[in-house]
């Protein structure tokens, strides 16, 4: 079931009402049932995988906690990690490994390809589940005794398929003391869902049409058309994912659950390090805590290792997104960006600029160059293969082709960018994603009603709704 369909709205309203009136404990059971219905709507067979994966980590958590020896704890953790990654690799990366092996060694191994659909959200719920066993092993979390709470932590519908990737230590305590939502929760939820729907349905889904067509057939488009399609993808992926996250957070809030912010005006970042503090925050924090710091050692070993660790973390982050070398290159580009920025900051830490004008100008240059670096990196993220990415680069920068359509596409792209920027600026000013909630009811509903009318009418104009980009990850 997709968030951007009227069916989801009907589903959400029904689940909310029933949940609200059910007695305690039964309401959680109902919420879990509704979540499994939500997930099984795509393919009920993958529900077995979700339930199996949840129960396995629940029991591994218990075993790790109960084990007396450090060595046994470690063995259990590694076994749990192995099983989780095995499942993930089988469904998501198996064909990629086969193809890469073929490419490297020239052996024909097509017959080994498996033809199964990627279970929706597998990367997200696997990482969530792993955070539970990791934190128990690191003695930062006590295992829950409640199977229902654990299954809800992994599988509650708002965040199950595309995040935010919630850590067990943040959600399990909430679930253990889950109260009925109050008016403030409802208003916050409503506010987040309204903004999220605007972002996803009216910006993300509509700008996608321009992007998809031009990326599908780039040889037929001019340099400026390719540039604007890339700029529009930059807008699309933000509106799509940030919209999804807002709907997810808003939906969870209706049940009294707080999910973490996933975005914080990332395109207004001052530099690339700042960008990764603002973009897909839940994944960045997961990678930072468990991969960069815990596994690789962060910056505690030596300078060279710090840069290598940054690079490795971003390569893993890129690979997490999808089984394609283009994602790895995307991660690698960001890894290089982060390493260079870290080195630059270390090299210039003694430089003080007292002139405010110059400092402001340098900040502006830094912000703009960060934005265009991010845009350039998105090319590898979006392009289906390197051939397309190189073609884009070549036509945009070297062998340029002129077009009469530049003005039309520029106006369209700038309008989309303006809409995204407007939301970011308001969020920034109000210091909140649920800014609608901060207005008086007259203003709040004066804004929300026209948005909902446009959103719902638009939903009806599309025969098949556009899935979220991150559903495939």
């Amino acid at each position: 079931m997709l968030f951007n369909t009227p069916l989801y709205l009907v589903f959400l309203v029904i689940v909310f009402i029933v949940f609200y009136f059910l007695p305690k404990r039964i309401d959680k059971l109902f919420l879990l049932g509704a979540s499994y219905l939500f997930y099984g709507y795509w393919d009920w067979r993958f529900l077995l995988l979700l339930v199996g994966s949840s129960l396995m980590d629940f029991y591994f958590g218990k075993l790790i906690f109960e084990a007396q020896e450090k060595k046994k704890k470690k063995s259990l953790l590694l076994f749990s990690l192995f099983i989780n990654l095995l499942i993930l690799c089988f469904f998501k990366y198996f064909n990629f490994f086969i193809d890469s092996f073929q490419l490297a060694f020239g052996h024909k191994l097509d017959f080994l390809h498996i033809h199964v659909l990627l279970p929706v959200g597998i990367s997200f719920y696997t990482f969530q589940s792993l955070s539970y066993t990791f934190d128990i092993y690191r003695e930062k979390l006590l295992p829950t005794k409640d199977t229902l709470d654990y299954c809800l932590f992994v599988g509650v519908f708002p965040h199950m398929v595309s995040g935010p990737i919630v850590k067990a230590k943040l959600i399990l305590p909430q679930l253990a003391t889950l109260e009925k939502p109050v008016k403030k929760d409802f208003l916050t939820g409503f506010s987040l869902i309204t903004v999220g729907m605007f972002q996803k349905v009216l910006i993300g889904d509509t700008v996608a049409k321009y992007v998809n067509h031009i990326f599908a057939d780039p040889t037929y488009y001019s340099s400026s058309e390719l540039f604007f399609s890339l700029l529009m993808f930059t807008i699309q992926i933000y509106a799509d994912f940030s919209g999804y996250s807002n709907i997810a957070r808003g939906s969870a809030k209706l049940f009294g659950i707080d999910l973490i912010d996933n975005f914080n005006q990332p395109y207004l970042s001052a530099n690339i390090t700042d960008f990764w503090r603002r973009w897909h925050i839940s994944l960045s924090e997961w990678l930072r805590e468990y991969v960069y710091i815990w596994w690789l050692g962060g910056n505690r070993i030596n300078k060279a290792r710090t840069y290598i660790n940054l690079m490795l973390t971003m390569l893993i982050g890129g690979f997490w997104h999808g089984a394609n070398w283009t994602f790895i290159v995307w991660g690698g580009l960001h890894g290089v960006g982060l390493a260079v920025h870290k080195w630059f900051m270390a090299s210039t830490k003694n430089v003080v600029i007292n002139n405010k004008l110059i400092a402001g100008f340098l900040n502006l240059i830094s912000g703009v160059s960060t934005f265009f670096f991010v845009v350039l990196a998105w090319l590898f993220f979006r392009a289906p293969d390197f051939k397309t990415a190189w073609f884009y680069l070549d036509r945009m920068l070297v062998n340029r082709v002129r077009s009469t359509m530049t003005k039309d596409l520029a106006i369209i792209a700038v309008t989309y960018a303006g809409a995204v920027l407007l939301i970011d600026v308001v969020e920034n000013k109000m210091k909140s994603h649920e800014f609608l909630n901060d207005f008086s009811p007259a203003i709040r509903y004066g804004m929300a009603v026209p948005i909902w009318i446009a959103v719902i009418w638009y939903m009806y104009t599309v025969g098949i709704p556009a899935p979220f980009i991150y559903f495939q990850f």
Partner: protein
Amino acid sequence: MKNLILFLITFGITVLGIEFFLNTTRITPPTLKYYNPVYGSLNRPNIDYYKAVEGLYVGKTNYDGRFRENYPKRKDDKKTLRILLMGDSFVEGIDVFSHNHFARYMEELLGQKLNRKVEVIDFGRGNCAIQASSYYFTDYISKEYDADLVLYFTEWRDMYNIGGGAAYPSTCFILDSNNNLAAGYLWKKTPEYAIHKKLTANPILKHYESSAYFRLLYRAVAMTKITGMPIMTFGKFGGSMKKPDYATYTSNAPVSLLSKKLYDTVNSYDKGQVIWVVRNKPYNAPAILEYLKDKNFKYVSLSDTFNDNYIKGTNIDAYYFKASGQYGGHWNNDGHKAMGYFLTNRIYNNLANCNTPNYEK
């Protein structure tokens, strides 16, 4: 009271903002059709337009409501070769950018081969069979525009006497009681026209088409009808879009009396040469080819360039749109390119034999 006023002001400002957003991003482009009292449904002139169903079109209509550049109605000198394109949505080519339309390839390639200016003016119009297009051609285009060549696209639908019915909301040629051609205005009896008349008669709703919100609602209702989905079922429960059957078939129907008269009338155009371009998708129409051959009319068959869905001699599918996954409706970018090359070569090789009195060969 204060809250109500505040609500209404915020509501109004938000509506205006969203109207601006929907209009500028072309999510709901202006309504393309309007009703001309003489010709029925025509395209609006000078509007920004966008369509992304199969492929992608972003552009404008010209002063005559067509999707290409503005051309003067009279050509500048005898050395300029001017070609008019007549036909339906294939010729309109609203699934590709203007610079990827086969008319642009023809202008460039033929211009290079002839070493002179070539103008290819596209008068294709979606869902417009020969009964409607030939009326517009004989009554308006052939009188107003100079043309050395007219490439008139025709296909299996044109064989039938469809009676100028509701499917073609434009003035059509029909047969009168003496089997002579006459103008038919059946579009005035269509439900769409009745709604349009009703709305435009209402002083408040008169400008309904100017509102992006209204157009969004209109499309929502229309889409619900097209997909056959009841208003409250969606997505998976509503059923996916039915996959059309795009196989190529052969229609063995004969050419109707009306259609014969239409071919004869159009072909009698005397300012230049009419060349019939016979499409082979989704149906081959051998009866049309036979009729044109019997009458000694000039024609080309697209079976010579397209083999089923593919560009002849290649494995390039001319009908598949990768981004939308739509298949078989119209030509994609590759298809237009192939058409441009094919028609350029055909015209270049046969231009000497064409009747083009206003073109200096």
